[in-house]
């Protein structure tokens, strides 16, 4: 039995310790917001946070997640930052097919957590591991910038 803390809740799962966190979330816990896209950390659809860092859950053995805080798309709105990012995604109307968007949002949230005012180049660098076949890249970029502006306006002394 492996004990996991996911979105603030403690859960026990009976899984082989080598099973990727992705498949524990999906097949064991039916938390289906985290997506399978490639299985080799090339597409970012499976991105979750481990202690606030973006990781590819398809390449993270579940044993590595034990004892750490796992945040998935289902729990991202529990933080003010996550809420801001989701609101920006809604405002810009980013998704098309939507399949990659959980991963995009998790990567964007991790970026803004570390760097609330990313430059264009920093956005590209942080998001380059997240693929979108529908081509929402420019809208994701716009949503990240909108969220960043919103964060700045919420800072004391920020542009209100």
């Amino acid at each position, binding site marked *: 039995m492996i004990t996991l803390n996911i979105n603030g809740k403690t859960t026990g799962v009976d*899984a*082989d310790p080598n*099973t*990727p966190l992705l*498949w524990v979330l*999906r*097949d*064991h816990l*039916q*938390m*289906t*917001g*985290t*997506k*399978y*896209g*490639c*299985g*080799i950390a*090339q*597409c970012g*659809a499976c991105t979750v946070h481990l202690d606030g860092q973006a990781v590819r859950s398809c390449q993270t053995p579940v044993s590595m997640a034990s004892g750490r805080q796992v945040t*998935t*798309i*289902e729990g991202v*709105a529990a933080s003010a930052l996550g809420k801001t990012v*989701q609101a920006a*995604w*809604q405002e810009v*109307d*980013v*998704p*098309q*097919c*939507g*399949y*990659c*968007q*959980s991963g995009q*949002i998790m990567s964007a949230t991790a970026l803004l957590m570390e760097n609330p005012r990313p430059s264009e180049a920093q*956005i*590209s*660098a942080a*998001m*380059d591991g*997240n*693929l*979108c*076949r*529908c*081509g*929402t*890249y*420019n*809208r*994701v*970029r716009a949503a990240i910038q909108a969220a960043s502006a919103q964060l700045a306006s919420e800072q004391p002394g920020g542009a209100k």
Partner: protein
Amino acid sequence: MKTKMRNTAAQNPSRRKFLKESVALMGGLVIGFYLPTQGGRAYAAEAPAKQVYPPDAFIHIAPDDSITIVVNKSEMGQGVYTSLPMLIAEELEADWSRISVVSAPVGAVYNHTGFGMQLTGGSSSIPSSWEQMRRVGASARILLVRAAAQQWGVPESECHAGNSRVIHAGSGREASYGALADAAAKLPLPNDVVLKSPKDFKIIGKPMKRLDTPAKINGTAQFGLDVYLPGILTVLVARSPVFGGKVKSFAATGARKLPGVQGVYQVPTGIAVAASGFWPAKTARDLLVIEWDEGPGAALTTTKMVAEYLALAGQPGLVARKGGDTVQGFRKAHKSVTAEYEVPYLAHAAMEPLNVVVDLKPDRCVIWTGTQMQTMDCAMAAKTAGLKPEQVQIHTTFLGGGFGRRANPRSDFVIEAVQVAMAVGKPVKVVWTREDDTRGGYYRPMWADHIEAGIAKDGKPLAWKHTIVGQSIVADTPFEGFMTHNGIDATSVEGASTLPYMIPNLQVELHSTKNAVPVQWWRSVGHSHTAFVVETMVDELAHLAGKDPVAYRMAMLPAASRYRGVLQLAADKAGWGRKKLPAGHAYGVAVHQSFNSYVAQIAEVSLDSGKIRVHRVVAAVDCGMIVNPDGIHQQIEGAIVFGLSAALHGAITLEKGRVMQSNFNDYPPLRYSEMPLVEVHIVASSEPPTGIGEPGTPPIAPAVANAVFRLTGKRMRRMPFDREKLV
């Protein structure tokens, strides 16, 4: 609305053949009476005005005034879960804030008005539903008003509808749709439906936010892969490494011993491993030892195939279009140019790999999958399971991308999943890994082209001979009957046979090849290759004539051509010929019509250590009347990314029958770091709406190629461009 009938009489015999063959193929299922057509404009004409669609098939109004729209097209990112409700809500006079969407079950009432079966494809959802869905909304509104008038004992003409309410101004009485729905549903269907004039539109033409966005940003949107049933087993199938190969023998001792594995089964497509989840199924599949009878597919190697195709391209083929006399034309030509083109197989590589959930019982089969082709899948599943089509139910989930792969008239992934369910005897979810999906075939065909073109002394084109070589997509499918005429698959030559330029001597020929690689429509189908070939060659002619590429095209286009409008708009917005670009940057242009929509693109390109960098794309589009402008922007942006991925990097190649690519590391789509700025400009139009999902893809490859020529003097004649050494 006035609509034009096109080719209707000429198409009748082939349409009858289409219906007959479809019925035969689908085991006797009658698939409807509408006639398939090629163009979006024709759909509007043939969605028969007299056909009365019961509004309750599409609209459910609850007592609390919430409205559920049943959408009969699959949502794969193109926005139909928003645009089709817009058409209904406009005429229904509905409160947009109370509208939600469910996907339609399989049923004749949900058939495509042009194809006579339930499917989503051909950039046809809006053009084929434009008339139909507005009629559905108007019919419902008429019944709601009628019900209110009857209850109040007032003339209907004194009542009007707005914001999901019926109002009688004279008495000040009002009733909500929710309160009237039951009474309205009991009334006979109206036969006096009059549609609004476009000037009265309140919803159509306005940028509307997508109704599916909230579910897609909080993880709750359900894709096929997200369906879990009690006791369901995850199944991975080991398929032949060579197309057409069969299992000769297999050993599964190691696989069977793995914890979580429930069984290993031979199925027609290979060896199926059923397990408690994806990970044990995948781990066990890796342990299988399979000997394959590979068959003739093992002889296929891309380099050899390209050589064979190019040799064929030099031979006379079937004539797809002929005007004037090319032999005479070339004799008179002042200058001429000859070029060969190579265009590879491409995988669709939708973000969600293929998957199907099947719950099979002796007397019924329930399927959950993201499909674009419900009627065919339903019929094929029934045939496979030995059931009647009405015993098969399909729940269409959200599609994690489609791009044509999920519209397979052969229903490959659905048939296999039913076969797996028959073997396993429990509810199953058949999951394709990314590698399975990349190597699974049903590709955009590989093409080789040969063009000879000549110009007169004044630079005007005099002769053009284009020979195309590649597999037919519709061969041996029910679509062959009406899409292939005299041996020519219209999808093989579209964009080439429809060349709009005034060239007095012009001939287009086709060689349809056959081999074991399964092929299929891929966003923009034939246009994905022909636009590249013809629009780069036209650019060569402009250069040969010493003319500006935009002016040269304009001079060759008929005065009333809608190509001219988009070309001019793109040139104006990009500052073609005026704007000073940074050193080392150049513009390239292309214009193309597909799915009855016209798109011009101008790409600003530079080279970065020999690598092509696209900085900005200015697109102009004429797709008739605008339904959701924001949706048009999304589709053009996305189509450019899709086409640019293919232009720069996309290739599926074979060695001894084996697909050399496997995943996003060796079949790389465009990433953020390569993403250009995209501007989309829409031509105002009062023409009926035409396709928008695909027409943005074809022009990007030639626009970039033409810019690369300006930078380097080198013509791109092979895709993808990252094969070329550029300095």
